[in-house]
């Protein structure tokens, strides 16, 4: 029986086949899915901010791209994953509201995506698909059998990447 397991905001989870991971309403946040095909292991993080080094005491590792990705890899290795097999798919990083000014806060979606790519690059995890940017929210599902990532939106269609 397939179970759909929800990943909240600033949260991450790891499951094996046949379970499915989902996170709802990604706006400027980024959903980072890692997949180990050989053992059908998936992990999903819903990060809010790019860089944990900007604060002193980081209590929630899943909140930041850098700490979340490291933790995700660590947990997947614990479950028997092999990091040389990991591939990543990412979605989200939209700009929900547009103001005239160039406020940093409004570009947070873009910065989240840039940071996510940098960190995955540094850790040598290839990004094989992405659906990022735009000005709309996304709900995603990640499948442990195929590694597929389904993106659902309001008014911008459904697609699998």
């Amino acid at each position, binding site marked *: 029986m397939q179970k759909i397991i929800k990943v*909240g905001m600033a949260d991450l989870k790891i499951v094996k086949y046949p379970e499915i991971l989902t996170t*709802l309403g990604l706006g400027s946040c980024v959903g980072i899915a890692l997949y180990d095909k050989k053992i059908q292991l998936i992990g999903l993080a819903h990060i809010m901010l790019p860089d944990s080094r900007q604060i002193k005491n980081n209590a929630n590792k899943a*909140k930041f791209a850098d700490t979340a990705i490291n933790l995700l890899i660590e947990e997947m290795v614990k479950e028997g994953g092999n990091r040389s097999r990991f591939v990543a798919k990412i979605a989200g990083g939209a700009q*929900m509201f547009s103001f005239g*000014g160039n406020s940093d806060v409004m570009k947070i979606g873009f910065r989240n995506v840039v940071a996510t790519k940098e960190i995955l690059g540094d850790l040598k995890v290839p990004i094989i698909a992405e659906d990022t940017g735009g000005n709309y*929210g996304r709900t995603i599902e990640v499948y442990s059998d195929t590694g597929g990532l389904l993106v659902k939106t*309001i008014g911008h269609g459904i697609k699998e990447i």
Partner: protein
Amino acid sequence: MFKVEDLNNMHLDVLREVGNIGAGNAATALAKMIDKKIDMEVPIVKILDYGDIANTLGGEESVVAGIYFDVEGDITGNIMFLLDVNSSKTLTGMLMGREDYSKDLDEMDRSALQEVGNILSGSYISSLSSLTGLNLLLSIPSLCIDMAGAILSVPAIQFGYVSDKVLLIETKLKDGNDLVKANFFLIPNAETFSTLLNSLGVYD
């Protein structure tokens, strides 16, 4: 500096009263605009974990219209005026004098919604400004119609670096026939809590 976690009951009472006065004025403005009686609930000061924010609005995937403002000046923060999608259609329908409120929102409706948000937030902020004697400025409105989770992640992220919790002063407004239901959120930045509380005679 105040942290969200440090606020005591008296602080929360004061913040609730801020919401009461601000939203009271906004409710009056809305009643005038659509010429209907508007009921306002007692404001609630909510201190929420990120995960619980969207649940206040019927789940992360429910479609809502959010009109978002930056507040600047002596205190900084944000205002968000939120309507579920049916309320948005009804409200613009009323403003446009339509018979049928089921029509999808077009460009004209979207700019009408922004303007409603603008007027209501303006009256909220100006009453807050006269109450506290603080200089408060409002940015231009920005509208987004999408999943509640995606929209509410925006204020959550703004708090993200300083806290794991978000403080919202929420007031529900609705018309007498229960057709238009709106949520009004004032989200002060944690750094300016003390300015806000001091201006109302509450000292840390």
